């Protein structure tokens, strides 16, 4: 939900690491430019700045610089990025949200034009209801939705974003026409949560982390997380275990410009691999509560392709893309 802050939000911790950049970066001679296609603050910017610190401190590259190109769910940045054809010294942070934004904004460029490098992090998506709701589990929610989709109001992030797509997938999974969902988009971190807590909507969808405190305090009831398998160390039922075939994660990844030769791609893959395995990166993941979802090279390319197909289908079925 935080992506939608138009204003510059919290570059905070990322800037801390950026400010404390170590000078002793040896090893690779790569002088990297990392584009965060968003304003300083949000998730992509934080990822870019965390990468910047980890890449240089682990010695994976000689230097790294973060450039912010905000706008339109990252598509402004993407349009600029694909122009850097054959430039093996650039990376761009992106994520699940961009896949949808490209379609809803009718962007003239697509992620297929870029060279996939690696998926880095992921966040589990969760569905919650207010603590006093009669809905106790995913089955109840599915029944309510089947009974009258209009009466089940969902609060989540921006239209066409991860949360919206997830609700569309939920409807599909339980056999309800996805165009009939009553999804109410909210912008900004707290607004949706406030609406759920105040009982203004039936259910809420967002990253698990955003609900965690409220769930523990007993103000919200967790219906389920949309993970493929139960998450170790997390006392949270998955939707799959409750018989609803829905798995979706909010992932973030990096891609390189189009037209790289094999050597260039290999260099970047190696640098990212070294970064992911560094102590610095692992500590950042822990501090920021990001799940490690490292997947690189061919495997990531296939994953990215599948996600694009899936998102396009969902957006069409909920009527956001024609």
């Amino acid at each position, binding site marked *: 939900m935080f992506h939608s802050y138009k204003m510059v939000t*919290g570059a905070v911790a990322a800037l801390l690491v950026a400010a404390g950049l170590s000078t002793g970066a040896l090893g690779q001679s790569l002088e990297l430019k990392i584009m965060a296609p968003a304003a300083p603050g949000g998730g992509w910017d934080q990822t870019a700045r965390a990468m910047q610190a980890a890449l240089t401190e682990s010695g994976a590259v000689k230097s790294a610089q973060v450039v912010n*190109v905000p706008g339109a769910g990252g598509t402004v940045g993407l349009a600029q990025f694909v122009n850097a054809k054959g430039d093996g010294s650039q990376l761009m942070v992106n994520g699940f949200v961009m896949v949808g934004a490209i379609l809803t904004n009718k962007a003239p460029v697509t992620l297929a034009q870029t060279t996939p490098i690696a998926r880095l992090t992921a966040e589990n998506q969760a569905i919650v209801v207010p603590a006093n709701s009669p809905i106790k589990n995913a089955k109840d929610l599915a029944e309510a939705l089947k009974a009258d989709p209009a009466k089940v109001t969902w609060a989540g992030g921006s239209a066409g974003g991860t949360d919206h797509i997830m609700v569309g997938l939920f409807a599909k999974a339980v056999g309800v026409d996805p165009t009939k969902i009553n999804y109410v988009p909210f912008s900004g971190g707290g*607004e949706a949560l406030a609406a759920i807590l105040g009982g203004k909507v039936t259910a809420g969808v967002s990253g698990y982390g955003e609900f965690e405190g409220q769930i523990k305090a007993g103000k919200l009831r967790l219906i389920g997380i949309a993970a493929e398998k139960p998450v170790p160390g997390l006392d949270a039922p998955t939707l799959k275990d409750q018989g609803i075939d829905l798995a979706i994660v909010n992932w973030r990844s990096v891609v390189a410009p189009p037209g790289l030769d094999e050597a260039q791609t290999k260099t970047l893959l190696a640098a990212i691999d070294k970064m992911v395995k560094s102590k610095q990166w692992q500590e950042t993941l822990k501090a920021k509560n990001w799940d490690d979802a490292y997947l690189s090279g061919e495997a990531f390319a296939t994953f990215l392709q599948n996600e694009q197909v899936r998102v396009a289908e969902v957006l069409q079925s909920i009527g956001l893309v024609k």
Partner: protein
Amino acid sequence: MLDSVFALAQGFSVALEPTKLLFALIGVFLGTAVGVLPGIGPALTVALLLPVTFKLDPTGSLIMFAGIYYGGMYGGSTTSILINTPGESASMITALEGNKMAKAGRGGPALATSAVGSFVAGLIATIGLALFAPWLVEIAIQFGPADYFALMIVAFVTVSATFGDSPLRGLTSLFIGLMLGLVGIDALSGQARLTFGVPELLDGVEVTTLAVGLFAVGEALFVASRMKHAPETIEPVRGSLWMTREDWKRSWKPWLRGTALGFPIGSLPAGGAEIPTFLSYTIEKRLTKHPEEFGKGAIEGVAGPEAANNASAAGTLMPLLTLGLPTSATAAILLAGFQQYGLNPGPLLFAERPDLVWGLIASLFIANAMLVILNLPLIGLWVRLLAIPQPWLYAGILVFAAMGTIAANPSPVELVMLAVFGLLGFVMRRYDYPIAPMVVGLILGPMAETQLRRALQISLGDPMALIESPLAATLLAIAALALVAPLLFRGLSRFKADED
């Protein structure tokens, strides 16, 4: 509640150590120094300076952090008053009267009433936060889209206070603002409106770009255009540099009223800091004994909105600390900051880490006091800025206006918008159109539309939902009264005049 007082006392005992006071002072200084850069609002200020605090121990960093927060807030108002360049939308209203005062040699009192007003508001609001947070937040959550919509309507009605002498021209300005508010992706449907295929426009028009363009750039062009015919004279200081007895007398009530508006509205999850400043300005304009000064530099018009702005900032801490809800850009950064100290704002925070919460609240008190102590002596220095020869002063203002825009969004499209809004501001000044309603329209239009459609979507299109909540009904009634009352009064007074 007694527990709260005890815990707060303990917080103070830690925060009042000499080294901690020094940290507070450094924090306020840094916050003010970065916050005064135009285009850099409190959110960005806090984000940029937060890393500095991490080098200290948790208590020390928390205190410096509070100092930066208040310093950044105050710094934003300083640019509004001195160079007509609001750093954030909430200090736009301050520029209306504050800059007029500064140009008439009353910059000192304007800055002083802003600093003292911020202090008073911060003090009261922080006390409110300490004592009532858990209760108030329960009420705040009960606000639904219909209630917010009603609140926006009240704000809309009060906009007429910024219209100047012609309702036609005021409305024209407002509607152009509303039109600008349409630009971009519609929040509820994801449809693009008025974007003409320019991807940069999909995110809409940035409020600070419009405000800086209209206020700072527009003003520079206008002053230049009139230089040969009726040159503007800026006096850095006329009369007292400090607030006079009269200034105090005219300021204290607006401070309190501004606080009373800012704190509750700021604590609403979607209340924001702008609406209380609009409401405060209107109320002060209605209640003042010097209506003729409004639009020419009335001190009430600075005192009230500034207090409202600061009180609402303390208000946003309420949902943040008690629920972990970041309800503004600044709050989102504060949240990230807290997490770095191992504080996880939310329902369990007060129970789990009382030491840190009360330490933070005590720090807020101290930072607030430090702000006044540091900034009052600096006022003399600030107003000297106005003594810079006019060509350099305005050239500098334009450089800073452009810089703020580039820093927030380094795209030529944004700069072109700044230039277009600057020309618009010039044309509007030339033909005597008020500019504030346009910014108000841009801020309020999308908010009101979103809440209205959200309310209707939840009620499945039933318009009765808009008045079913008692609160919404009351607010709408207030709006109706505010709209009709002046007409009635005018009728009455005309009637009386006829009798005489």
